[in-house]
């Protein structure tokens, strides 16, 4: 479903990704690990289409289409979802109103009828249980005044509502206590399906105890230095990143 070839990305003139190759099939969970500054989040943001991340070379095919030629909103409507590392607070925009607009933007794109307020609330109530989202979070402005854990839960909640084909989680685990981490992981696991792919970007192996990946890739210095199965994460936990970078 996703085929990344020799992806090179610059941020503010600095070359961050220096040639990434990655292939993700539907139904797979890929974990991207790596030390700080290795380019993990850059990969996530470039795939989502953040305007500050400039692709200088390479190709990304998403379901056979040129992903890099699409606007960020088009990517989202085509089923790509990125859970933000730092979800943005948007004053004055009601969270439920925003979520309804997002769900309906996608439905419209798929040629489905838009959900009315009642249908949307039914969907919300069903998905909110999964992530322990309470009513007050829906009625507040998007992410405004949310705790760190609430923000991350709200991201996964959005994912549950939007039902993407490919979900990219950008350090969704960072800053979470163990209870929140379990909630988030349960939310993700409930979404795992044969038709859906995941890229889980994380700094810590801990998350992968709860979201068990099919593949683990180690990113360092803008390149994938090593790929393996889930046992690679445990090895990284035990030995750190040094032995890979030295190799």
């Amino acid at each position, binding site marked *: 479903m996703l085929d990344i070839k020799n992806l090179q990305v610059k941020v503010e003139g600095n070359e961050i990704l220096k040639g990434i190759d990655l292939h993700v099939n539907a139904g797979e969970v890929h974990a991207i690990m790596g030390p700080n500054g290795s380019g993990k989040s850059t990969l996530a943001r470039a795939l*989502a*289409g*953040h*305007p500050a991340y400039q692709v200088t070379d390479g190709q990304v095919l998403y379901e056979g289409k040129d992903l890099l030629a699409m*606007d*960020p*909103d088009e*990517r*989202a*409507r085509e089923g790509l*979802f*990125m859970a*933000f590392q730092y*979800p*943005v*607070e*948007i*004053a*004055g*925009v009601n969270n439920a109103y*925003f979520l309804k*607009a*997002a769900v309906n*933007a*996608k439905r419209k*794109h798929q040629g489905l009828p838009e959900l009315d307020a009642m249908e949307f609330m039914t969907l919300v109530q069903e998905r909110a249980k999964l992530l322990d989202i309470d009513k007050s979070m829906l009625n507040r*402005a*998007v992410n405004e005044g949310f705790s760190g854990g609430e923000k991350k839960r709200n991201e996964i909640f*959005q994912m549950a509502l*939007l039902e993407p084909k490919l979900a990219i989680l950008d350090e969704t685990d960072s800053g979470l206590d163990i209870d929140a981490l379990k909630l988030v992981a349960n939310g993700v696991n409930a979404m795992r399906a044969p038709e859906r792919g995941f890229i889980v970007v994380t700094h810590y192996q801990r998350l992968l105890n709860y979201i068990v990946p099919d593949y683990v890739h180690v990113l360092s210095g803008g390149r994938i230095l090593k790929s393996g199965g889930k046992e690679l994460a445990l090895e990284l936990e035990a030995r750190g990143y040094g032995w890979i970078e030295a190799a």
Partner: protein
Amino acid sequence: MTQVAEKTTPFVTALERRPQGGPRWLEDLRARGAARFTALGIPTVREEEWRFTNAAPLGALDFTLAEPVSGAAEHLTEFPYTDAEVRLVVVNGRFDSTLSRTKGLPARVQAGSLATAMSEHADVVQRYFGQLADFTNRPFAALNTAFVQDGAFLSVPDGVVVDTPIHIIFVSGADAARVMAHPRTLIVAGSGSQLRVIESYVGVQGLTYFTNAVSEVFVGENAVVDHYKVQQESIDAFHVASLHAHTARSSTFSSHSFSLGGKFVRNDAFAILDGEGGDCTMNGLYLADRARLIDNHTTIDHAKAHCGSHEVYKGILGGTARAVFNGKIIVRQDAQKTDAKQTNRALLLTDGATINTKPQLEIFADDVKCTHGAAIGQLDEDAIFYLRARGLTYAEARDMMIHAFAGEILERVQIEPLRQALEVELYEQLARDLAEVDGV
């Protein structure tokens, strides 16, 4: 001397033909206004209060005093909430009794022509009129005073709650261009009374005219007055207006100002919190495109202890529009335990739009809480990206954020039909502005 004569010539000529008649005190007041304006002239940018707003183009135009006209009725429906149950219509500065309707007001509430009130309620008018609108250093208030003739009068007796909002509609230049009107409003709310009033200033699109309004509002002890101002003049019109409110002990005054029209707009709003335990809200929302100018000057004067004030002004500017916001908060020596908060935000949709903003705190008491903050800028690109990453187009994301920005002020309008009408008007105007920004 030559310079002074030059810059004030049009008004000086008109001043010679200013209205006559009425009670003696009024004749005297007009004469003092005329003399003061002649001495002050049109302000220049060298004056602190007019530093960012060049009034010279106003002085250069030859406005003649508007005559009463008919035919205003047909234009009224174009403007928000003109179907209000109770409305007072003032056309070119003169009260129009045929367009006004006051049925449904509680007994003893006086609502009607100011000119009529000057004879029929001489005691009330003489006691309050001109007490707040000091014109010593304010040329346009002086000019208005020189031309005082008519306008709107509202008086609510002690303890009376007026449920129905009262809409005062000032229509300008209904027939001819290049006219000026100097309407005057006097509102007296007795102790324990409650009143919601809207002042709308509207005019026929495309006409160049000058509205120079002065309003005085007296909020009695423990009274509640919600004041709304909707400025929707022709986009070629000049609009200068001042609102003066005085609050007595434990009273509540709120001002909501919406500035949507006008080519040259200067709003002054003054509130003096002159009794303990008073509360004042001052909110504003202004919209300007093209090369229009909107200048809001506000002053909240905490004269007594234990008063609160909350002020939020927001603007959305496109084209090469310019805005000025000057928010003064005075805390007098006796005004201990003052709690004052001021926020000022502006969104610039284009590179050509500009705003000059200045908070001005003058604090003479030591046990007070005063905060102010200003934020000027473009839309937050990170927020736009966040919304787009969830499938909204750039235009949808931007509109959502702009509506949210304006919504904070709109949602505080407590008169539902007015809020809805304003929302429609505002969003239509925004859609036009944004289409221009997009080059559609």
